[in-house]
């Protein structure tokens, strides 16, 4: 599912300054499962902007729904489980 890969720098939140990718048009949900935290990064057309730098608790039902829908991608936090 990579036909429409959006790529850009992430602004704010834990990925500030790092490259990000999403296969879907609105951005991605960054999930740190072990810590039960997540962030939403919105695609602006050229980069990803964190909606709120403060983490939210993970709602598994919503996370699964996001994975089933085609608006936000779901991405594991790169540091999770370290």
């Amino acid at each position, binding site marked *: *599912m*990579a*036909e*429409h*890969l959006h790529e850009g720098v992430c602004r704010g939140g834990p990925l500030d300054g790092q490259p990000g*990718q999403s*296969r*879907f048009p609105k951005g991605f949900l960054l*999930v*740190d*499962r*072990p810590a039960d935290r997540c962030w939403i990064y919105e695609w602006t057309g050229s980069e990803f902007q964190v909606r709120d730098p403060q983490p939210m608790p993970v709602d598994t039902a919503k*996370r*699964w729904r996001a*994975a*089933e*829908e*085609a608006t936000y*991608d*779901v*991405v*594991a*936090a*790169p*540091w*999770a*489980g*370290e």
Partner: protein
Amino acid sequence: MMATRSTPELVHAARAWEDDLDYPSAVLSGIVGDARHRASGGYHISIEDNPPGNYSVVRVDDAAPPGKWPRDRAAAIDMSMSPKDMVKCYKRVRAVWSNPADPRRRFFNAFNVWDGSGDAVRLDFVTGTASYATPDHKWHNHGEWRRRYVNDPAATRAMLSMLRGESVAAYQKEEDDVSWSERIKRRPWVTQTWPHLGEDARADATLAGIYGFSRLSAERAAELLAGQRAILAAIAGQDVAEAAERAAREGARAGAAEALDELAEGLADRLTEVPAEQVRQAVAEVLRERDRRAAGDDPQ
């Protein structure tokens, strides 16, 4: 109109991949492809929604027809992970992919994985080849099942075994152990007689049911045989024809022989269409045979 849906097995496999394996960072990233994905096709899209001739609907274990598997189901899971878990997953998937004798291979079409450096790689389980995979596969694994197995619990077990990094021997032992939990189809006469039981049942429950039914049947048969022996004992020494002849000879009363014949025939009608004497002899022979077997001289 999109017709692609997931399957219970894919959902179960994805949940187990997240919760039961040692990939703490794992989060589901997709099973069913979106409408735009439909244009290019692939295993996230059902057979019906794929463009004709798409690579994901032509292999022998994917094409339906002639295959009879579902045409409206996705056949792939995307699982996002941290780089550390991606590398762990890569090593385990590659170990199965690189062993032509591994029985788990038969369930999968391909996995897109990443070893932590350079490009992601697509491991084709059908051809045994490795090729380039797009950069998004550096943060999510993409696993494709051969479409014929999208509803097969054995495919789930094989995938989870592979992702656990189990050896072939461990997988085969596990298959031997868990086969009793497999759900098997009930016989048509069972579902017709007791429709509330459903179309299938666990193998162990089915075996227990068969054992119980067989034991009950044996007990009932023993009771029936005991009853027949009691009847035979009660009529032992009595010969209906001889009694009728004697009655006729003695001239006890006119028509006695005919009356006894009618009585015998009436009894025979109630018991079976076979003459009563024949029934008696047959039952006696069965009992004699049973006694012989019980005495240990079974010729079989």
